[in-house]
């Protein structure tokens, strides 16, 4: 009797889950499966855009494709630099916003603003900020007497990378600070009080209480930002278009060129599949770390 009720409940549960599962299948599994299927074909201008089965040859081509590996490296540098900077700044901002001060809610709202603006517009604005002739950055540096002539920020490979990273940090730091702020507010003030009574300094409290208890939020924010930064397209497309000379070309820009400009659909699909697999691996490692830290915080 007990068992049949249980079985019925389970069946109902599955029925209720089916719409969501179908949606997931349709939105995630189908495009990924299709991309994988397409990556087994040569479908480009050489074949009059008709698919011709070619097995794993697209993947073989990728191995010798210097541009893919260069864009992959560029994406890794971009992602690492911007996520690390955003975490540090985001944490600092969250700590400030967690303090009680007059006008706090106004500042909190203002702080989220860059995150809420459309990225393409932000890209355009930052391209002007870094413009060599009319840009604000050069104007400030000139007025301060640090430089004599305007720096061509977006025309120099290293400086262009710095510029896009700065723009991305400006835009997405608020996202991290809001996530971390939520985490900070869930930490009980009693802990700090008790720690202080034991003679701990605020600095010690930060390392012993704040940081360990905030670890799950930090890891989730990192995971989120990592996946997002790895797929960055709009900001860089608008600011530099991947230039100068491919110095800021990230994987998604290369995929865009392959599909939209070269009309090389099969190879583009192979690029998507490999990037997806690499990203999934990275995310799996990160989730593993999150679970471990959750378990360790639960036991302490």
């Amino acid at each position: 009797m007990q068992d049949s009720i249980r079985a019925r409940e389970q069946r109902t549960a599955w029925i209720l889950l089916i719409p969501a599962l179908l949606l997931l299948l349709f939105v995630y599994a189908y495009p990924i499966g299709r991309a994988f299927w397409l990556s087994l074909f040569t479908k480009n201008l050489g074949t009059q855009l008709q698919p011709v089965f070619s097995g794993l040859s697209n993947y073989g081509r990728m191995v010798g494709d210097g541009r893919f590996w260069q864009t992959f490296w560029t994406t890794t540098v971009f992602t690492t630099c911007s996520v690390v900077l955003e975490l540090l700044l985001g944490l600092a901002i969250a700590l400030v916003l967690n303090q009680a001060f007059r006008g706090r809610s106004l500042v909190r709202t203002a702080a989220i603003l860059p995150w809420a603006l459309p990225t393409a517009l932000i890209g355009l604005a930052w391209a002007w900020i870094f413009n060599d002739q009319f840009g604000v950055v050069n104007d400030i540096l000139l007025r301060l007497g640090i430089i004599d002539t305007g720096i061509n920020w977006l025309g120099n490979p290293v400086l262009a990378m710095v510029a896009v990273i700065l723009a991305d940090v400006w835009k997405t730091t608020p996202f991290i600070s809001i996530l971390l702020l939520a985490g900070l507010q869930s930490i009980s003030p009693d802990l700090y009080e008790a720690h202080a009574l034991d003679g701990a300094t605020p600095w010690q409290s930060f390392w012993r209480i704040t940081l360990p208890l905030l670890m799950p939020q930090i890891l989730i924010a990192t995971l989120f930002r990592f996946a997002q930064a790895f797929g960055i397209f709009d900001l860089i497309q608008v600011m530099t278009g991947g230039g100068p000379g491919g110095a800021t070309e990230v994987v998604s820009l290369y995929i865009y060129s392959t599909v939209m400009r070269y009309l090389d659909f099969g190879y583009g699909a192979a690029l998507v599949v490999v990037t997806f697999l690499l990203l999934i691996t990275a995310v799996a490692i990160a989730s593993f770390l999150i679970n471990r830290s959750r378990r360790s915080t639960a036991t302490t």
Partner: protein
Amino acid sequence: MAQQPVTLRLLMPAPDVPPLRDAMIQAFQEENPGIRIEIIEGPNATNLIEDLYTSAFLLGDSPYDLINMDVIWTPKFAAAGWLIDLTDRVSEAELATFSPVDVEGGKYDGKLYRMPMRSDAGVLYYRKDLLDQAGFDPPETFDDLMTISKALQEDDTIPWGYVWQGRQYEGLVAMFMEVLQGYGGYWVNPETEEVGLDRPETIQAINFLRSTIREGISPPGVTTYQEEDTRRFFQSGQAAFLRSWPYVWPLANEAGSPIQGKVGIQPMVHQPGQESGGCLGGWGMGISKTTRHPEEAWKAIQFFTSLEPQKEFILNSGFVPSIRELFSDPDVLAKYSHYPDLLKVVDSAVLRPPIAQYAQASDILQRYLSAALTDRLSPEQAMRSAAAETRRLLGT
């Protein structure tokens, strides 16, 4: 009852619209009251126009009837099956009025997809006044170019010798085509699809460009220059030679230009025993495969490419004509006296490889060429990789 007029749509870069509109559209619509032409003014950057056309075609039902094409898009658009084959609509005699290389630039796989509207080809500008003063003839070979530059620089006549476009972009490839041609090399053989990038001529061509920087003939910043950077450099009197396109001529000779009336124009230099060849540019018109009005569109193209409207168009814009007769037309010559020199350049112009995968091949060459010119790779290393990637792309 009056019939509803047919509307033909055409997308092109906004700055190119006024000459076309003033010279042709009005006259065409007066002659053909049943057809209206609507020009959509697109972005100035031509690669964005190419992207807009591409997206429109990929979505299936292109909103454009007439396609205004750069010479390097034609093979791609034709291979993708987006254009109507025009071969049977024109006779050989009609095509013979155009420069053969402009007609060739509109063909893919032996079929015609684009009618030439205007030509363009890379040229070498030199400072006539300085060369005359120092008793030099205009250079013929790469060595002449180096010798004259050095002599003028040593006399403190001019700070730099030669400027060219060295930034990693399509202009780099166009410039390099000409040096490569002057050394007797090739990039991709259009018939056999054989890749010539790792041949000794290519290495020699790169070494020439590297030596212009190493020996102080060209400024080190030349590897970041595009057309306009080099034009300003030349026009402000800082260099004796400039490789660029015909558009520089009217600007260099306008009132207030420091080098007004001091400029000569000639084909690119070459190695002794080789031929020079300017890189062919230029635009033409094709018809979209999805158009509902192919006959009207063809009528418009016929009008646009006929003599009288072309003459108006060339006089209006200062573009290089595709119709050979216009190079010696008295009205055109009265306004643009250097056109006979340009005809020589157009006649020796070379096409960039007319292959469907041109954009990809060009990007490969741009990357490795730029790396070789900026010392990140040796010319041999760079061209070995470039050749290997190009061969993989073409499947040869």
